[in-house]
């Protein structure tokens, strides 16, 4: 089983790695973390701080795609994955400058084995960066997903059992985050405050004949504190404000508390 090497969080998805009780929305509805499947691949160093990994993996199942969560429910998660089509994925990272870590990744594969007569294909492109200087850390990530064949797929799903099927042909999202360690070095216990802005749209571009659902064009502010009694344990508190472009449907704000650890 392999973790898809896309984005900052997917390969290290345990709570101490990200701020906020929940993962960033972008790592939920644009990049469907935790994203893993059967696969095989290679990895290595190119030199001068550049490294890569590339895998072939079991594909997504387009019959799980949705208007609000994109490709998330198309994950097969290994055990009994259909591998009629093989997907390819890869990532390059540059870590040659102190404190800076940048990466770019992709995933590409046919996804239509549940509807063999529909040519459906998904391409994911993603770039990210993390920068750490003293007690300050900044992160940014942008992800874009292109979905081919969704017009036909929507029509097929509507005829089957999903009258509301309205999958987009492009979805995209980004976030920027800054955090500051207020209990600084050297200390076994740490605390960080953070603020994150996210903007994500799972109806960014629609196939011909389908209307955008504005409530799925969303953005969010998340502010909070992470307290680490140990680097592998995080006690988290955050407040998140989510908005969308629809004039009718409201998103609830939420106060979240959580305890997570890497076991």
């Amino acid at each position, binding site marked *: 089983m392999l973790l898809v090497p896309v984005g900052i969080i997917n390969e290290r998805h345990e709570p101490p790695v990200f701020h906020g009780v929940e993962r960033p929305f972008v790592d939920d509805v644009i990049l469907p973390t935790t994203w893993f499947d059967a696969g095989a691949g290679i990895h290595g160093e190119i030199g001068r701080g550049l490294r890569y990994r590339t895998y072939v993996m079991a594909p997504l199942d387009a019959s799980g795609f949705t208007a609000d969560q994109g490709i998330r429910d198309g994950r097969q998660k290994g055990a009994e994955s259909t591998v009629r089509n093989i997907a390819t994925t890869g990532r390059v990272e540059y870590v040659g400058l102190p404190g800076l870590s940048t990466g770019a990744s992709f995933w590409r594969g046919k996804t239509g084995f549940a509807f063999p007569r529909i040519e459906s294909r998904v391409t994911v492109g993603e770039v990210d960066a993390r920068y750490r200087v003293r007690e300050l850390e900044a992160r940014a990530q942008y992800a874009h997903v292109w979905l081919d064949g969704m017009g036909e797929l929507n029509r097929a799903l509507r005829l089957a059992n999903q009258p509301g099927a309205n999958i987009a042909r492009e979805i995209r999202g980004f976030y920027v985050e800054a955090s500051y360690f207020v209990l600084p070095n050297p200390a076994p216990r740490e605390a960080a405050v953070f603020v994150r802005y996210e903007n994500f749209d799972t109806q960014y571009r629609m196939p011909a004949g389908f209307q955008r659902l504005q409530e799925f064009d969303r953005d969010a502010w998340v502010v909070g504190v992470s307290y680490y009694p140990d680097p592998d344990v995080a006690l988290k508190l955050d407040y998140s404000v989510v908005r969308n472009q629809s004039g009718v449907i409201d998103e609830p704000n939420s106060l979240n508390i959580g305890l997570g650890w*890497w076991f």
Partner: protein
Amino acid sequence: MHTDARCVVMSFLFAVACAAALPGAAAAQERQVVEMVAERFTFTPSRLEVAVGTTVEIHIRSQDTNHGFHLVNGPNVIVPKRRQGEAVVLFEADVPGVYQFECSKLCGAGHNFMKGEIVVTAGPAGDDES
């Protein structure tokens, strides 16, 4: 508990005592200090290039949990958790070649990817890579 846990591993010597036969190579060893960061699931830098005759002093700090630094056929030390100190490994680059190192403390799903190498070149010192 958290006092700077310095695991110093001394003299990783390759038992090839031919330095005296090489003109100019027997002079005082060049010492090079490398700051390395261990983080799930990479070492940064993960490739060091040093000239033969160099003593490399590798200081490894973790950005997250415990890792291990194991030089294949050589020393194996624990890298303490973030902000709890560093591990120091001394490597005598006496023989040109490629020396692999790897994480020796199971640290999660990508642990097996956590590897690197020290390339000892026959050329002059000073072109380390990060």
